[in-house]
């Protein structure tokens, strides 16, 4: 069966520090991968998605970047965090092709930038 791992669960970082959040998927190959951010009590904002290794689509110009160095690994990074980067970050995957319609989410990372 497929599983998605996202870590860490919580993170407190000072303004100006770097960030690296990692997400890995097991039990499937060539998934579409997604990073979303959620402000408290709000909906999900799509940040990045990837349809293959090294292929990254950015949805929102911002202080963040994403990379996909391996088929089932998706990394969210920042060189210098801003206060506005605080939020709940969710990684998700779905299968490619017509069968891959629903998203499977990780458990999320609560990031607080102080």
């Amino acid at each position: 069966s497929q599983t998605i791992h996202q870590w860490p669960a919580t993170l407190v970082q000072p303004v100006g520090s770097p960030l690296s959040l990692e997400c890995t998927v097991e039990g499937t190959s060539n998934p579409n991968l997604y990073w979303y951010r959620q402000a408290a009590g709000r909906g999900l904002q799509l940040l990045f998605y990837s349809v293959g290794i090294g292929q990254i689509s950015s949805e929102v110009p911002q202080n963040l970047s994403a990379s996909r160095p391996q088929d089932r690994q998706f990394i969210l990074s920042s060189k210098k965090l801003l206060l506005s980067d605080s939020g709940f970050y969710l990684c998700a995957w779905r299968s490619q092709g017509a069968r891959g319609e629903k998203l499977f989410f990780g458990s999320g990372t609560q990031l607080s930038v102080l």
Partner: protein
Amino acid sequence: SQQGEEDPQALSIQEGENATMNCSYKTSINNLQWYRQNSGRGLVHLILIRSNEREKHSGRLRVTLDTSKKSSSLLITASRAADTASYFCATVEGAQKLVFGQGTRLTINP
């Protein structure tokens, strides 16, 4: 971009009552999906309804879709305290992007 918009933003009902949440969207769709999120957790897929379907059932869930009005509704019957969560609709933009609404926060009071 914001494709789906849920209504109401918050809903509080007594256990055993039915809960209805609505979603409106803007562009043509192939399908519309509903997800559930418990506080501080990831989202879980509940049900998918295709554009050529008008109604779909799954257990205590009933979803309707009206493509002429670009709207969908999620009905939870005989609500339970464990149904307390946020519920989101999602649609696909282009071929790859799932875009979510702001969600409805549902509270079931015992």
